[in-house]
Each structure stands twice: as C-alpha cells, then as structure tokens.
C-alpha cells in the first residue's frame, strides 16, 4: 500500500506541475467574469471548448436573421471604417459574398480573456451560418494571444492592446494586422463604505489614490476610512488601460496595493466585501449593485459617452492576424466587426461597445 501511494504521489506532483505551467487557459476561463455574471448563452465552462457546428434547426434560424434587409449596407460601411487594411476587408467581403455563407475549414482563436465571451458568441453565430467552419476559441491572456499568433500557433490572436514596436520586431511580427473588434471601457469602482457621498473623482485624485499618495478616503472628500487598493495583475489589459489613462502608460507608477488579482470577478468580489476598497473594472461590471462605479471628471461611464469619446478610460480590443490571415480568418473577423453582430443584443449584454468611428 505504501509503495503504491508513493508512486501515486509522484504522479500527483507531475500533474500539479503540469497544471501549474500548462493550465493557463483553463484557469482563466473557469473564472471568466463575463460568463458568470452575464448569464448569456455564451457561458462556456471549459476553456478548450470547441464550438462545433450547430444543429440544423439553429442553422435555419440564423440564416433567416442574416437575410434581414439592412444588413449589407451597414456592414460594408462599418467594415470600411474600422478595418486597418482596406484591401483585406475588400477581399474578405468578396469571398464571403461568393461562398454565400458556406465557409469551411478550421480556425483557432486565442488570447484576451476579456474578449473571450464575445469571440465565443461570434464563433457560435458564425458557425451557425457556415456549417463547414470549425472555430476554436480559447483564452490564455492577451500576451499569449500576441505571442502565439506571431509564432503561427494560432490563426487569430485577441489582445486588449496593440503589439508594441518592440514585440513586432522581437516576435518577428512586422506584418501583423490588427483589427479593432470591440471597444472595452473601464471605470474605477469602490466599496460602498469609504467614498461616503463622493461619486465623482478627478483624474488627479485618482492618480494620487492609485500611486499610493492618498491613503484615506477623507483626503478626497469621503469618510474617514483607509483606502484599500486592489489592483489587477501586471500585464492585464484592464490594468494597462488604466495605466494608459492615469500614468500615460507607465505601469511602474501603480502602488503595489493590498492585492493584485488575476481576474475581474475576483476584483469585484474583493471590492464588494472590503470596506474602503478601490479598483477598476470593465464596463460589463458597472451595473453590479454591490459596488459603486465612480464618475471621472464629471463623466459617467455609459454607452453614449464611451462611443463619443467623452469617457477616456478604455479603447478597442484587437483581433490580430499574421499578415492578412487566411480567407476564413478574414471572413470571421469581418463577421465580428459587422454592424449586425456589433449591434446585436448578445454583444451588448456582454458589456462591449460597438467599434465605430
């Protein structure tokens, strides 16, 4: 008995180690914030979930939706406006038009966990229209998305931020094409205890809180309550968007804070239960009743202000291909950016704002 336990233990260690270094996808997805809060159909438990072809009935419904009259015009307008590469979108449109919703082949998409639910939804709908297509969407992190698409491991990498020029050269990815697929907005959030009557902070006040200069809510007009700073982990898209706004992108200016969380759901939990806590979250979380979404310089984070550009925290998330990408990849990106999808209920529910000029 003893011996066999020992062997079993060795196995355990191996598995633990494997899990530790290889399970990044699983981990990110299993706590995926949006899928657990939105209750949308895109709630997908498994990270490596392969969205396979839809059954015939759904197929029919989907095709019906697609034939809605206004589609074509709006779609092309959006495409022209947003795509980085005009030639590419033209080609993509052409091919889609020719094959008439019968694209086939396999596509792997990975990267940003923030964009994951939206990409999964898109993949589901795209496959419903193109029964021959098989699109695998996984998370893994924006960094992984950029790295893997550049090394050719995947077809499309999702990323909350663009490739840096450094990455373009180091990852041998000069020809990468970055298409904005959705606007993600972020806002400072706080526990109900602490801000008191304050529901608006200036950018300057926020800078002081997040760089650790202000340590008590009374310094910004709130209650006498110590500020508990909760950060996202370094390298997260949410955090870099916040750094871009607060510190002109210089992440080093963030104070260490009380904790650095791996995902937004943990941030929400932590902020909601910790008096004095402050952090930042994506747009989808702001309606959550147990936290306060703070206004910044008198502007509230809502869809109109985000689209108009009055709300300054956030920016587009990108689908990155190496070169123009395969025909299928182009068609998929075209579908994701189509106004039909961008203005759909599912898209809105997931907390994204359509990409528009």
């Amino acid at each position, binding site marked *: 008995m003893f011996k066999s336990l020992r062997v079993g*233990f060795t196995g355990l260690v191996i598995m633990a180690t494997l899990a530790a270094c290889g399970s990044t996808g699983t981990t990110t997805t299993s706590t995926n914030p949006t899928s657990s809060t939105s209750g949308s159909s895109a709630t997908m438990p498994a990270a490596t979930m392969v969205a396979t072809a839809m059954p015939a009935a759904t197929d029919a419904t989907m095709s019906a939706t697609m034939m809605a009259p206004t589609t074509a015009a709006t779609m092309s307008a959006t495409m022209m406006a947003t795509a980085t590469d005009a030639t590419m979108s033209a080609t993509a449109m052409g091919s889609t038009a020719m094959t008439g919703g019968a694209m086939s082949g396999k596509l792997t998409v990975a990267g940003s966990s923030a964009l994951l639910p939206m990409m999964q939804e898109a993949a589901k709908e795209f496959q419903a229209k193109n029964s021959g297509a098989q699109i695998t969407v996984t998370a893994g992190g924006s960094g992984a998305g*950029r790295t893997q698409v550049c090394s050719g491991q995947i077809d499309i990498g999702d990323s909350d931020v663009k490739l840096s020029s450094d990455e373009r050269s180091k990852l041998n990815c000069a020809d990468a094409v970055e298409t904005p697929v959705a606007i993600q907005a972020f806002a400072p959030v706080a526990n109900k205890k602490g801000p008191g009557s304050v529901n608006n902070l200036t950018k300057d006040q926020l800078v002081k809180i997040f760089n650790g200069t202000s340590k008590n809510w009374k310094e910004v007009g709130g209650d006498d309550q110590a500020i508990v700073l909760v950060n996202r982990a370094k390298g997260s898209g949410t955090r870099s968007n916040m750094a871009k706004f607060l510190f002109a992108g210089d992440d080093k200016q963030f104070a260490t804070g009380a904790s650095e969380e791996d995902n937004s759901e943990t941030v929400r939990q932590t902020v909601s239960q910790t008096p004095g806590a402050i952090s930042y979250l994506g747009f989808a979380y702001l309606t959550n009743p147990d936290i306060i979404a703070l206004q910044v310089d008198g502007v509230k984070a809502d869809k109109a202000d985000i689209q108009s550009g009055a709300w300054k925290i956030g920016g587009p998330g990108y689908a990155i291909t190496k070169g123009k990408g395969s025909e299928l990849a182009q068609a998929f990106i075209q579908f994701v950016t189509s106004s039909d999808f961008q203005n759909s209920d599912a898209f809105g529910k997931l907390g994204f704002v359509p990409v528009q000029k």
Partner: protein
Amino acid sequence: MARRNAILAQSIFFSAAAILVLSTGALVLFIGSTGLRVFSFISPASFFFGRSWDQNTQDFGVLPLLFGSLATTLVTLVISAPLAIAVSIFMVEIAPRPIRRIMRTAVELFASLPSVIYGLLGLTLVVPWLRDALHVGLGKGILAAAVVLVFMTQPTMVSIAEDALRSLPESLREGALAVGATRWQMIWRVLVPAARPGLLTAVILGMGRAIGETMAVQMVVGNITSRIPSNLVSGATTMPAAIVTQLPEATSPAHRAALIMVAFLLLVITLILIAGVRLATGGKSTKASTRRAVPAAQGGRPAAVAKLQGDKV
C-alpha cells in the same frame, strides 16, 4: 500458456513502469532545460536571492515566491496535520458507525469540490473573517491561503490516515487494553505509533497538495510578488499562484523562462521535502514497522505453523 500470460503481464507492467519513469524524466528534463534558460537573461544570484519579482523592472528574484510557498505550506501543516489525525482517530476509534458514515461522506464531498469553490469560499468567508478579526485592510495573505488549504488538505489526509489506523489489527487494540491501557493510552501509545508510516504518508500527501495548489490560493493570497511579505496577513504569493497569474501575460522571454524555472524549482522542492521528511522521521523503527507490521500483527508466521501442528485455529 500460463507462462506466456505471465510473460505478457510482466511486460505490460514493465512497460507501464517504464513509461511512467521515462515520462517523469522527460518532464523534469523539459521543465528544467526550459527554465534554466532564464540564466541567459539574469544571473543565478539575482534569481535565487532577489527579493523582488516585478516584470515592470524585469527583476525576477524568486524569494517572495519561495518564501510564500514555504510559509503557506508550513502554516497549513501545523494546523491540518494534527487536525486530520484527530479527525481520523475520532472516525476509527470513537465515533459510532452512523456518525462515522456521515463523516466519511462529508470527507468525500470535500474531496470532490473543485479548487475554485474553495477559493470562492476563502474569498467570501475566510478573507473577511480574518480582516475583521485581525483588523487588517484586506485580509488576503499567507494566513488566508493556509486556512483554505487546511480544508483542502483534509480529505486527502483524513482518508489516508483513517485507512492507516483502520488497517491496524484488532489484536493490537486488545493487547493494549488487556494490560490496562485506557482508550486514550491505547490510541496514543500503540495505535498512532503503529500507524506512523501511514500517518506520515497522509501528511506528505497533504503537503504535496498544499504546496502545489494553485487556483484557490491565488484567489486569497493577494498575488503580491514584488516583495517578501512582512507578516502573514498582507498580500503575498506562492510559486504556483505566481505562475498561473503571470504566465498568460508573460510576453518577455526572460519572464516566461523565469516562471518556468519557478515550476522547476517547485518540482525540486517537493522532491526535497518528501525526501527530507522521510529521512527525518523514517529511521529504523519506522522502516521495521512498515515492513513487518502487517504479518506480525496477524500473528508472526502463524498459518503454516498451525497447519503443521494440526491444531484447530
């Protein structure tokens, strides 16, 4: 025919063992060689003795991670090993059958909970509780992680410790009672020492679980890698938590290699811990009792002798 079967069976077992050994070796080799690449970016001294791990400054000093893992594991074991042994003693020696059955079910239930659930419970129950009880701002840190791990390690530890105690022959118990031992004396002076190898295995496996646990720890430990924590209740990290938090966003090759080196270190440390505990507690007596407890407890070498003698047994 029988011989051919035996050969076949033997070769199957042999290749299974070979596959296990080889794949273990390959894994260690792969992780080791990938991880060691970190030293083409930073010096071993700055890796092993660096007191900060911060990708912003590209400092990859492993001490905050190492310290966090060791401290978390230690605090966990200090609480959970005695607890598990007490619980298993209660289940085997004291609890009446229905209660024992309920406890067994509870333990099995605990074992089947995914670690993210433990993390969630830790986040919503343990962290606020520590925060209020200890008057700290947030409550995340090594202590919170250890409390969660105490619960996570119980199923493994209790079920193995329980097995170890249960497999002790009734004759040992009667032997102790017959010379006038009370139930507690029987338990502490005979059963626990006799079950020591099994209890030790329970503790080691619990330790393996504690040091390798990722998800639940990550949710309550605070994930602060840039410094060695000064106490048990401020943000800290462990090796697996740091790996899982940072690997997805690690774009710089130095950062990736450093993280994989941490995985390698985790592997090595686990091996050292196991070997160390065995050495420390596995002296001559443990070995003797491990090997002999079972046959001797059943009466030395009885069956054949009894047959020879023609006695009724």
